[in-house]
């Protein structure tokens, strides 16, 4: 099952309203994406916590065999 880039972006944006989200479809198959997320909400949080917030925003779409999204390479940061 595949997922559209704009769906990923919308889910992240919904959970993190300040976020700037850039998505790349790495393999062109709707399954392997890279996302860069820059959000005020990340301030003061370590990378694990930042990534956990993004995963939470994706609401289970990453989950194992039933997940629509096989791989999401994530880069997260707070704005400089």
């Amino acid at each position, binding site marked *: 099952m595949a997922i559209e880039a704009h769906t990923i972006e919308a889910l992240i944006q919904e959970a993190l309203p300040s976020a700037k989200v850039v998505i790349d479809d790495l393999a062109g198959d709707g399954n392997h994406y890279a996302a860069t997320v820059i959000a005020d909400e990340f301030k003061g949080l370590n*990378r*694990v916590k930042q*990534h*956990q917030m993004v*995963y939470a925003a994706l609401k289970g779409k990453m*989950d*194992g065999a039933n997940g629509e999204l096989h791989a999401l390479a*994530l*880069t997260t940061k707070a704005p400089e």
Partner: protein
Amino acid sequence: MTTATDTIKSDITSNDVVLFMKGTSQMPQCGFSSRIAGVLNYMGVEFKDVNVLADEGVRQGIKDFSDWPTIPQLYVKGEFVGGCDIVTEMTISGELDTLLEENGIAFSKDAADKIRESNG
């Protein structure tokens, strides 16, 4: 009865560095697992590899345990460090060196520098 969570806790407390991965250190079965195992092997870091494909309970258990949906997952001294992206970033930035140094874990600084040179 030993649960998956007990196994996970025991692994991460009795080993300084643990990589939960698909496949083994010598025979990774996923590119992301392979990348971290490759970095650790190259840097000469001694670590325990846990093949989640060999145990469905651990495969799901580690995701619940660390609240992290993907494999691989790296633990140092019982603390979750991150998955493939975070560990890669930390390798390039030198933060991984610092983390290992702070925890008294042996590794080759030269090898780490070489990784950075070829990915700088």
